[in-house]
């Protein structure tokens, strides 16, 4: 019977059935960072165990990294303690560590792909829920908890129940000003924040065929916001072109053999799926969130929902709670809402193509008075490439602060935080209460170009109008 990529990769990595019916799954690539790994190394020591495959484990530091000054010791003693623990753990176990200043440091989900560590047909685990990002290459990538990190460190495997596969087709042509971020916000709005529980999402259709690898990463990245444990796109020529000559990509004859293997892994036409969802690209418009869950999405030209529009009591309670937290009036237009902070970065939208696209529109414009705007490259390599192209200058001249690489204000574990009830137009992935560092801070998720539009106007705005996008400019 024809199989999906998920089935093939699962079979190739299944070690055995466990007594509780779960599968012991081989994790080929383990990515670790400073927040979720030190406790796992501690557990390992307590059990007298060692890292089994150090050469398949890769580390970087991202969550707690200050993006203004990276001189050590950091002002935050706990942050210093965490980076130090990671350095020592990596040194002791013989794990490759992309440290600050090495030229390779960055957000773990940016580093893996740019180093060529992320490859099709592999299984990847990382103690971070946005690990699904790596699915853009046709890898099966799971976010895991710290005890599972311990399991992967000690055995290079973990216990997992097999997922169902939902194929999500997006066909047709996206309108100008509509980006990968809008596609995934739309998918999450349609299927709900928990619609993907128990599923792997396989994204396909002409929109994904046409997407660059980095756009595919943006979509896969937010699979977890739709409840899906992982999300992926079948590998194709774009995938191979992206990986060619990366530091950890196969070389020479091994490259050709790898490409042949990768091609054979793609889901076969007509293979069975547990569910199929079809979406027309033309339906999608620039999207923003209005609430406190990633499925609280609307198009920028729409009105904020009213509690009366809810389908049931739970939804009504959820709308009321969100409106109260966001201090939004039901039934009003979201466009025109003043913003205090604009953030472009994160593992969702902190790559070269994101900054390049924004720079196209930001050139010659200025951030509105009273708005704090920061741009945080996803990695030292992204920073370097942006500088080479003069992108950092475009941002600085417009009034953005151009920072060092890290997770930054996506989750504010470093000094980059909202203050009070500031409202942030953010290219990140979560709009949970308190997510951006202030317990009452407010987050509105959107594409990087939409964040730029908010930055120059000082309000949530339709980027298509602000930047006069028309079909010719697409």
């Amino acid at each position, binding site marked *: 019977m024809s199989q999906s990529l998920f089935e093939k990769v699962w079979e190739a990595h299944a070690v055995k059935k466990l007594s509780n019916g779960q599968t012991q799954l081989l994790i080929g690539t383990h990515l670790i960072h400073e927040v979720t790994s030190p406790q796992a190394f501690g557990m390992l020591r307590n059990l007298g165990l060692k890292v089994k495959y150090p050469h398949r484990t890769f580390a970087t530091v991202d969550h707690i990294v200050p993006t203004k000054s990276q001189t050590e010791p950091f002002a935050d003693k706990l942050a210093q303690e965490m980076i130090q623990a990671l350095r020592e753990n990596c040194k002791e176990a013989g794990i490759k560590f992309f440290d600050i200043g090495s030229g390779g440091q960055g957000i773990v989900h940016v580093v893996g792909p740019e180093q060529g560590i992320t490859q099709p047909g592999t299984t990847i685990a990382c103690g971070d829920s946005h690990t699904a990002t790596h699915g853009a290459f046709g890898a099966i990538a799971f976010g895991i908890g710290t*005890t599972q990190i311990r399991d992967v460190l000690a055995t290079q495997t973990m216990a997992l129940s097999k997922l169902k596969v939902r194929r999500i087709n997006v066909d047709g042509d996206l309108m100008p000003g509509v980006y990968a971020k809008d596609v995934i916000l739309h998918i999450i709005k349609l299927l709900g924040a928990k619609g993907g529980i128990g599923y792997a999402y396989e994204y396909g259709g002409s929109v994904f065929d046409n997407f660059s690898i980095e756009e595919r990463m943006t979509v896969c990245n937010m699979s977890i916001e739709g409840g899906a444990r992982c999300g992926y796109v079948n590998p194709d020529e774009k995938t191979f072109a992206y990986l060619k000559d990366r530091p950890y990509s196969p070389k020479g004859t091994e490259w050709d053999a790898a490409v042949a293997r990768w091609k054979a892994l793609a889901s076969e036409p007509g293979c069975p799926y547990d569910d199929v969802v079809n979406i027309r690209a033309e339906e999608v418009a620039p999207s923003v969130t209005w609430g406190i869950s990633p499925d609280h999405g609307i198009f920028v030209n729409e009105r904020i929902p009213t509690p009366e529009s809810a389908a049931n009591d739970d939804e009504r309670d959820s709308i009321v709670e969100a409106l109260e937290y966001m201090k939004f009036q039901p039934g009003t237009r979201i466009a025109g809402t003043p913003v205090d902070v604009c953030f472009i970065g994160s593992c969702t939208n902190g790559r070269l193509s994101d900054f390049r696209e924004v720079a196209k529109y930001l050139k010659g414009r200025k951030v509105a008075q009273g708005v704090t705007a920061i741009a945080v490259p996803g990695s030292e390599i992204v920073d370097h490439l942006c500088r080479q192209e003069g992108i950092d200058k475009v941002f600085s001249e417009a009034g953005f602060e151009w920072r060092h690489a890290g997770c930054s204000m996506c989750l504010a574990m470093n000094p980059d935080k909202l203050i009070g009830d500031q409202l942030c137009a953010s290219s990140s992935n979560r709009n949970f209460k308190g997510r951006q560092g202030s*317990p009452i801070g407010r987050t509105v998720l959107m594409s990087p170009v939409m964040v730029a539009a908010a930055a120059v106007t000082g309000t949530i705005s339709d980027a298509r109008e602000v930047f006069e996008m028309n079909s010719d400019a697409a």
Partner: protein
Amino acid sequence: MPLDKITSVVARGVHVPGSDIDTDRIIPARFMKCVTFDGLGQYLFYDTRHEMDGTLKEHPLNDPRFTGAGIIVAGINFGCGSSREHAPQAIHKAGFKAVIAQSFAEIFFGNCATLGIPCVMATAGDIEVLAEAIEADPSVEITIDVEKCEVRYGDKSFSVTIPDTAREAFLAGTWDPIGELLDGADAVTATASHLPYMGA
């Protein structure tokens, strides 16, 4: 590695209302700066329990009537969001032994299972009645019978759903899979040998 068999959890309950209680709500990210999980319990639901100036807000976990509760009773999609284990660890370190909710986020559910915290699913109606019973008498003792997939309190009971894999692991004392995973070392080597990228 012998583990306790978890056939049932008996404790008093506390009702934490609301849907989609995410991991950042369970423990705000700023409290995750730590190299050990010890001490995370004090930050459980911190921002919903404290005003900006640190004074206590009205919250079930601040209510002395529910001090010492061992079971959280919650709504839909409890624990959504991050894969960081800090949220289940905060629940664990704060002394909770189980959660009853309408549904759970998947990663959270798995993380809890590995810590020996049964997360069991019940209908909205049963949860509402249970929540009322706890409110009426916070000392009511709740039994989560993992074996029978049943919750009992006072003279009432209702059935709950526990996914088979988790249920069997609790009953067999294999809820922490590390022992079985280590046992499979030879099979792991064999599987790896068929995967060129695993290299030498």
